[in-house]
């Protein structure tokens, strides 16, 4: 599962939704994979306002990835005057779209429940006593 997907996911348990600690989910024993994907610079630029930058920084540091800039990159930092993608944009593409969790667990910071990731697919189905 892509790192970008984690920007939109939280604990499936209803009562955790209002608890800020339930986001982002924390990867445990994560085995990472890189999958090459064509870069769409417009997509990266327009997904940026949707990212929780602080959460993304937490995730990449928990996964031992290169640290992100302190602040969200500006439009000028993403595309040069010639409209070419900058290194910053390329790095974001690699991080968000090409870096994924192949296996491991995702842990809720509020309730501690752990969701398994197998073959790149996260399992958010809850055991019946938690539904």
């Amino acid at each position: 599962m892509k790192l970008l997907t984690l920007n939109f996911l939280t604990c499936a348990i209803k009562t955790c939704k209002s608890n800020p600690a339930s986001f982002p989910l924390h990867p445990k024993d994560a085995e990472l994979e890189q999958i090459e994907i064509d870069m769409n610079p417009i997509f990266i630029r327009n997904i940026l306002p949707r990212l929780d930058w602080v959460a993304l920084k937490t995730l990449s540091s928990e996964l031992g990835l290169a640290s992100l800039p302190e602040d969200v990159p500006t439009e000028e930092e993403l595309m040069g005057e010639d409209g070419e993608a900058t290194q910053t944009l390329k790095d974001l593409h690699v991080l968000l779209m090409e870096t994924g969790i192949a296996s491991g667990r995702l842990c809720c910071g509020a309730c501690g429940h752990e969701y398994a990731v197998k073959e790149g697919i996260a399992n958010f189905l809850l055991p019946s006593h938690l539904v």
Partner: protein
Amino acid sequence: MLPTPSTSHVDPSRIYEPAEDSYLLLDTLSSGSETAFLQQRFPPETPCPLVLEVGTGSGVVLAFVNAHAKRILGRSDVAALGTDVNSFACKAAAQTVKLAASESGIGGALLDVVLGDLASSLIPGSVDVLIFNPPYVPTEELPTQPENVADEGLSRDAEFERDSHLLSLSYAGGVDGMETTNRLLEQIPQVLSRRGVAYVLLCKQNKPREVVQQIQGWPGGWNAEIVGSSGKQAGWEKLCVVRIWRVS
């Protein structure tokens, strides 16, 4: 007519295959009135829309919207996400979406198809376009949710039983065929963004006009409208698609 994504890799013994209901969703989402509505709702240069299909099954609908994002949403910087309770469907749907995107060449970006119940693992206020082709057939009982689907070590009988159970989850809707749909409708006000819109398929036995009226009474200014239908003559399974959105 936009091309329909290929689903020849989908195993019909354990995953719901594209059928009349799927095609009605494709026709509705690519109709002139809906593309105009969506393009006005998500103008280019606004943040990327997140499209979530709940219960993706074969993935044909999500693959269609993603591959033809430029024609449907007027932009190809679209993020596509799916959920399904069937792990076989999750894998197959991801493949369907990728295949269709590579054929169109200008599709949106598939995030993932995750194993999960409806939209329960989504961040509140995150979904811009939600699509649901529910288990809508009225049945005496609602099948139980799978907790964990074992892949290996099953006898042939056990495997057959598991696959039948997975298939039953794709159509059996319990009382009025609405038990699962009602749970999804409850999640909509929380999970949709301010600009969000949901498309939910219903059949005649679901009493679509009553559902529309109920939604119009939700607190916070909601509207709903039937924006597509099929099987108007003889077929007992008359289908329609309801669009749900915030008006305020």
